[in-house]
């Protein structure tokens, strides 16, 4: 019993219960299977459940989760950067006013309410990112990748899983997939380039009725469709259709080598 108490006392993080300076970068790494939850709140002090060992090197606070630890919850002040890397399990991060990175081998990632850049990876699992103000760089392989209510440039890649971009406001969007579908309900926030490309799947884009754009739809003959009034269309060769609304605006490059491309107004 005494040994357990001594071990528990030595495992406590010295920064627990203290303020973290805004420049702090919290890094959590877990080798085993875990659910890692990071919750940011203004004025919150660091609290780790269960108590874990940590080390502060410069402005980087490192927490290594021992193998066998199931659930880890970190309550942190919102004004820090967060990085979570686990081999398997789920990552949930919310309420951070700083950059966030989440990388899981097999498991799901859920990130919400972040004012900062977000980088997310899941080899075998879903990525759900919502209410993000900042650049998004997300990659999945065979599962759903969903971005909701984001404001900032977006780069998403998904080999065979569906990519959903909902209520995204961005100047620049780069969405790619090989065999699946990209569905975008997006609005531009300034001149930029939206490039959405699939090899065998479909690209479906819905924009606001007042949005001005120049869109090039590249798909096999009769596999592209434009469902919006008051636009000019010009066909180039067998595959390409250029659609223009207004003067200038967002440049869209929507391509499917052997699937379909669809452009319509938001309803």
């Amino acid at each position, binding site marked *: 019993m005494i040994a357990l108490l001594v071990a528990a006392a030595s495992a406590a993080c010295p920064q627990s219960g203290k303020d973290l300076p805004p420049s702090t970068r919290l890094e959590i790494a877990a080798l085993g299977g875990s659910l890692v939850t990071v919750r940011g709140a203004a004025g919150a002090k660091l609290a780790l459940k269960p108590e874990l060992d940590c080390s502060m090197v410069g402005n980087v606070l490192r927490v290594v989760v021992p193998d066998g630890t199931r659930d880890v919850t970190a309550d942190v002040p919102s004004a820090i950067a967060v990085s979570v890397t686990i081999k398997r399990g789920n990552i949930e991060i919310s309420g951070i006013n700083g950059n966030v990175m989440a990388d899981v081998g097999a498991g799901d990632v859920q990130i919400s309410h972040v004012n900062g850049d977000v980088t997310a990876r899941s080899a075998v699992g879903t990525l759900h990112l919502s209410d993000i103000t900042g650049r998004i760089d997300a990659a999945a392989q065979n599962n759903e990748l969903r971005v909701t209510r984001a404001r900032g440039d977006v780069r998403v890649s998904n080999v065979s899983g569906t990519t959903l971009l909902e209520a995204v406001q961005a100047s620049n969007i780069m969405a790619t997939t090989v065999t699946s579908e990209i569905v975008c309900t997006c609005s531009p926030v300034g001149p930029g380039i939206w490039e959405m*490309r699939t090899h065998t799947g479909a690209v479906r884009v819905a924009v606001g009725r007042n949005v001005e754009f120049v869109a090039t739809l590249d798909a096999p003959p009769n596999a592209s469709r434009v469902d919006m009034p008051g636009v000019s269309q010009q066909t180039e060769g067998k595959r390409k259709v250029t659609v223009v609304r207004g003067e200038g605006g967002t440049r869209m490059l929507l391509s499917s*080598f052997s699937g379909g491309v669809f452009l319509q107004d938001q309803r």
Partner: protein
Amino acid sequence: MSDELTRRVRDALGPGRTSQTPPEELWSRIAAGTSLLPRRRFLDLRFATTGLAAAALLVAVGIFVRRRSVESPAPHAVQVVTIASLESIDAALSALRRDSASVPRVADEMLFLARMRASLQSDFPQRSP
């Protein structure tokens, strides 16, 4: 029984022997006073030791099986999915090569797939198990 043993049994029973005394109590009295006491404690200890060893073996096997079942699939699944993704891209590239790569649109698609392949390897580097 020998005379010596009979004497020791009689001494052990003492004057309290009656027909109403339960056989178990009689036997316990005999056992307490004679060397004929069955080695029950020794046997119990031996059984207990064997049982503990068997239980420890079962627990060890259980832990081993559980760790194998919990830990192995995740890295394995990641590798399998990544390899499957790469193979699907390679298959698409091979199919395009059968077409005419001199066609600009086909060449552009091959470049796109090659970029996707490189991006996949960059985003999901093979990790050590």
